[in-house]
């Protein structure tokens, strides 16, 4: 067992899989000698060599595109995009090629690649370093989109992503990289890629969230518990494909739902979950569901970013509104 924070857990998962699967290669900017700007790949080039931990030229488009070629030829490339704001040049390759290579060749060629990127606000970063682009990717057929909310889930989900035969977008909340540690066995055990994790059982309201927002969501659940309100907390760590069964089952028991996410509100994944609840869980709902999200604005720079991010107070207020509604 080891006490690891999230970025260390990422490192251990990469190391485990590189040790056990010679097809795994890492590529990205500054990931080799420097170990990545967040140190996610620290020590891996020394251990596995520069041919498998590739410091690439500064070219996000070609990093994603080359990963597709590598994957189609039998490697398991893990491409790191340094910050989420730099992920957009990869979209052409991810959307037009990675997501559909299996489909358009009827399985003759496949694309088992992982595109890793930090995401999210809250670390006083410069412009273009605080985006939450999960909904962009989750809209694309053929992809898997994963966002861990703890070191242990980062470890298990990244291993699952590395072993998945299809492309996975793996978004790592930077705010969690060093926020807390967990005991991790580092035994190579993967977590499932298609189920939500119920982090806390409750009976009065279902709180649905993912990534760094689970910090505020769980704190809100604590605050509510002190008032005798029992909140169930669900971590939608695997955002695509979406496991609605767990959410529907929870809402069927609690009758109330508050969805919390950091990304902008309109067209966010909260809307998709809400639509599914409206289609299949409307008779379970005793109150209108609530969304607590980032606003439909540009993510502010450091001085205002915590007024953008959903707070414990906003989540608690939304729960109260739900409870008061009927």
């Amino acid at each position: 067992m080891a006490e690891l924070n999230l970025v260390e857990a990422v490192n251990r998962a990469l190391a485990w899989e590189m040790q056990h699967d010679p097809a795994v290669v890492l590529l990205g900017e500054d990931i080799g000698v420097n170990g990545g700007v967040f140190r996610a790949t620290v020590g891996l080039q020394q251990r596995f060599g520069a041919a498998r931990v590739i410091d690439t030229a500064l070219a996000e488009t070609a990093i994603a595109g080359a990963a597709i070629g590598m994957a189609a030829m039998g490697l398991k490339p893990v491409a790191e995009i340094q910050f989420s704001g730099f992920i957009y040049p990869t979209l052409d390759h991810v959307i037009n090629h990675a997501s559909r290579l299996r489909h358009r060749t009827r399985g003759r060629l496949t694309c088992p690649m992982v595109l890793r990127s930090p995401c999210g606000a809250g670390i006083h970063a410069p412009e273009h370093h605080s985006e939450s682009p999960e909904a962009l990717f989750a809209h694309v057929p053929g992809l898997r989109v994963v966002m861990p909310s703890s070191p242990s889930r980062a470890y298990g989900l990244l291993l699952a992503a590395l072993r998945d035969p299809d492309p996975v977008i793996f978004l790592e909340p930077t705010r969690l990289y060093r926020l807390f540690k967990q005991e991790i066995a580092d035994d190579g055990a993967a977590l499932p890629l298609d189920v939500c994790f119920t982090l806390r059982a409750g009976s009065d309201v279902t709180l649905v969230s993912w990534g760094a927002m689970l910090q505020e969501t769980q704190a809100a659940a604590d605050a509510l518990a002190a008032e005798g309100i029992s909140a169930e907390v669900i971590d939608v760590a695997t955002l695509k494909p979406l496991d609605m069964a767990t959410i529907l089952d929870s809402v069927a028991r609690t009758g109330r739902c508050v969805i919390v996410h950091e990304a902008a509100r309109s067209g966010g994944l909260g809307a998709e979950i809400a639509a599914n609840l409206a289609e299949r869980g409307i008779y379970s709902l005793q109150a209108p569901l609530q969304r607590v999200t980032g606003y439909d604005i540009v993510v502010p720079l450091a001085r205002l970013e915590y007024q953008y991010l959903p707070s414990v107070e906003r989540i608690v207020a939304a729960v109260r509104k739900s409870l008061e509604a009927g």
Partner: protein
Amino acid sequence: MAVVARFEVEYTRFLDPQGEATQALPPFALDPAALLPLYRAMTQARLFDSKAIALQRTGKIGTFASALGQEAIGIGVASAMRAEDVLVPSYRDHAAQLQRGVTMAESLLYWGGDERGNDFSVPRQDFPICVPIATQVCHAAGCAYAFKLRNEPRVAVCILGDGGTSKGDFYEALNLAAVWRAPLVVVVNNNQWAISVPRSQQSAAPTLAQKAIAAGIEGCQADGNDIVAVHHLAQRALAKARAGGGPTLIEAISYRLGDHTTADDASRYRDPAVVEAQWAFEPIRRLRNYLLRLKAWGPEQEEQLIKECSEAVNAAVEAYLATPPPSAADMFDHLYATLPTALAEQRETALHFAPHEGGGHG
């Protein structure tokens, strides 16, 4: 002042437009008999091309991108490759694909709107055609890296158009592959037109080959209508890549004698008289004239070849037209290795409403 870099771009031509050798032919072409399979393949590709256009005009396939006049590039390059190499083609590269072993029926199936046409029996690892411009150069660079990492003596061969050399993908891929010294051959089919934009408006660079120089790799030019030159440069670049010498870019200069695709009308933006004049340079007649001059070919053989190639095209068309449409389930079943639960319900819906699949609309 010190000059810190100079470069040259070599231009290669063996057969002039009349089919006369302008210099001693390379070893592979010394025996005219060795050129006959290339002549046959170009002829087959052109007959396939014209049939595909006819099929589009009669509604039997969808939009099709003709390679009329550029057959020497696809055949010349693909014939220099080994079976285990990988072709990463653009949408105008059916000649190269056919040479690699993709069947005409498979090609028609794809252009007819059925992805099963990309599930080639041979060659199993070649990429399907790439529609987004120049993105495939990045994929080819990645393929080449995989070969190098595993010490496999294989080469990735990528073809794109002149317009594609304006894309960032092209520059980024060349740049990466050069740093990696990866076994990659990039072939630019410079057919002078990117839909309606002529070569002169595409780039102010005197040659497209010199774009490779900036990435630190060799760039050379071929008369793309001379299959001897194309094959020779491809052979040389492939051997270099296989021996660890890194990437090469070959700019093959040709001319798009047809429309961009069947959805295009080139008379809107270029003078038909100019196009007509370009027929004097086309590759098939050039090689035929060379072979006729050496008496390695004659009218009877030509007649027999056209007959055989036409029959092969017709058989492919019949096979394509006789292929039943796929099940609606086919839209879902190859997206992921395993159908996600979230998609299962949508698949059921599609099957329910699909005609002739037990659905309510029958």
